[in-house]
């Protein structure tokens, strides 16, 4: 019913500043789309155009098939969490949460009840009588989120709603949001920098860069089949190893080792090889493809250690590898397995996946 369609959306501030460049997207009812991309790539701008707060320079926005490009924000019945919160500073937390509902003439008993639920979820019960100025940063963000969640809009737009919350709370809120969205079956467009969030919450992820959609796909697809070098490097933490290598026949030359991956119809003279740190592991005897090297640097990430490996014969080329943290790796010499099915090939010039 309220499917959101964006067709060739463009926003131009000036010739040089084009934060949104010909973006087309679709989000169906009950679908959860995450916008992922580096800071300043146009995520907020896209959201603001969908909400009607910014007039697109070109392009159309349809909701449930209806062209809303020229509709007032208030007539679009969307709920939005602003990146900057935009709380009403003169209203108490309760009134901030209630404002949208009051306007929609929701009966006050229902308002009370919805707010109580939402406050409980966000841990805001004790703060109902405070004004935003008397809240901590994270509390403000929760109010901003709550203001959107209490509504039953046709579309949810969430601009980094959890960035200032602690991991625990974030996890809980994430789970609850998932439930809420599932029950309301409306399109959700979500902006985040947190990839776990992007991966766990969404049905679809759009990776943006410079105002252009780089890839629009399911989270798994994006993780396993990044459409280009940018997506490959951007998604996944720690970052994917991306090495520009010379080719030899059907393999790429990494130091003393030949790397075989998915077979390509035609191997170019040089190629970019990608492999995620977590897909490299200590070699077992049966592994078909291995490399050797010495540990250069170890970083403790808690559960794992991130290890920089200087590959044998590769003249300074290093690989990041994720290994269990129950062992001291410093200075060791390791043999690692490089599963061929985990290798990604990218074009040297276009960066596209091969």
């Amino acid at each position, binding site marked *: 019913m309220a499917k959101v369609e964006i067709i060739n959306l463009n926003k131009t501030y000036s010739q040089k500043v084009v934060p949104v460049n010909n973006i087309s997207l679709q989000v169906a009812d009950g679908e959860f789309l995450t916008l992922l991309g580096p800071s300043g790539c146009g995520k907020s701008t896209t959201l*603001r155009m969908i*909400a*009607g*707060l910014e007039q697109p320079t070109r392009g159309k926005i349809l909701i449930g098939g209806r062209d809303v490009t020229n509709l*007032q*924000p*208030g007539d679009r*019945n*969307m*709920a*939005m969490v*602003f*990146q*900057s*919160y*935009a*709380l*009403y*500073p*003169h209203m108490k937390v309760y009134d901030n949460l209630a*404002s*949208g509902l009051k*306007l*929609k003439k929701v009966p006050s008993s229902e308002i009370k009840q919805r707010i109580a639920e939402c406050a409980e979820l966000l841990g805001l019960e004790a703060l109902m009588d405070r*004004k*935003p*100025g*008397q*809240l901590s*940063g994270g509390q*403000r963000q929760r109010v901003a989120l709550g*203001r959107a969640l209490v*509504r039953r809009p046709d579309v949810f737009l969430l601009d980094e709603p959890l960035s200032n919350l602690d991991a625990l709370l974030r996890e809980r809120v994430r789970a609850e949001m998932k439930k809420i969205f599932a029950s309301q079956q409306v399109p959700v467009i979500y902006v985040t920098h947190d990839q776990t969030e992007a991966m766990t919450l969404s049905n679809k992820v759009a990776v943006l860069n410079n105002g252009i959609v780089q890839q629009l796909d399911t989270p798994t697809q994006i993780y396993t089949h990044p459409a280009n070098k940018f997506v490959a490097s951007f998604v996944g933490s720690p970052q994917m190893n991306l090495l520009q290598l010379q080719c030899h026949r059907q393999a790429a030359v990494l130091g003393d080792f030949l790397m075989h991956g998915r077979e390509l119809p035609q191997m170019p003279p040089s190629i970019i090889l990608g492999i995620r740190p977590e897909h490299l592991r200590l070699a077992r005897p049966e592994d078909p493809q291995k490399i050797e090297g010495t540990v250069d640097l170890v970083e403790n990430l808690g559960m794992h250690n991130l290890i920089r490996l200087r590959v044998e014969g590769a003249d300074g080329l290093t690989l990041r590898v994720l290994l269990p943290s129950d062992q001291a790796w410093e200075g060791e010499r390791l043999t690692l397995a490089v599963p061929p099915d985990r290798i990604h090939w990218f074009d040297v010039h276009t960066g596209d996946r091969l």
Partner: protein
Amino acid sequence: MNLIIKKIIFPLGVVVLIAFSLGPVLWQVLTSVKVNEAIAAVPNVYFPSWQQLTLEHYVELFTRRPLLRYLFNSALVSVSSTLSCLAIGTPAAYALARLRIQGEQIIMAGILTLTLFPFVLIFLELLEIIQGLKLGNSYLALIIPYTGINLPLTILVMRSFFQQLPKELEDAAKVDGYNTWQILTTIMLPMTIPALVTTGILTFIFAWNEFIFALTFMTQETMKTIPVAAAQIGGSSVFEIPYGPIAAATVVGTLPLALLVFLCGRQIVQGLTAGAVKG
């Protein structure tokens, strides 16, 4: 350095400020309770003796004329013109600050130009309008001109404050479904209360003290305002300037204003937008 400011310069500033503002006022108050001989005595009487003190100027003020009526008239005219000025000017200011209006520049230029016109010079023509509309001796005869004269100030001041508010708040309100009028009244205005009160105070004071229009447009005794009534206070002769009673009238006429400022002054506070937006 900072401590010096806090501990010395600041209190000193307050004292000087009070002396500066209050000095002449206190002199007026003193004059209003001195007997005529003490008023014109050389050397000046700063600390009058008991014999030199009197309330006769006040008594005279209240007994000889319907002073309360004048106060009522002044209050009515000032309150209505202030309210209508804010009611008309604030929306306009908001529109000029935030809504895209074609020719906004021209309107602003026009308003700025009008601002500069000394209103004393237009009162004959205004009188013509008042007569044409048959408004003479009605409260509207003062309310309309006062409102009009104060509009430019209201619009400019409110506009500048609206422009300083974070735009995201309006965006949030729009998404919540507020219409433009609701945004103005329930979101923007509460945040600009200091500006609103300030303009209100300035407008009110202007209307309360305006003299020429009030003198000309209101000829009936029952319609006169305080300053006009004060101008009618006579001494013992046509030539005598009755300093005592005039001082008393000044005090009585200013007291409601002082009270108003005192009560509204609380609203001129800081940090109304605290916590609204990040960044």
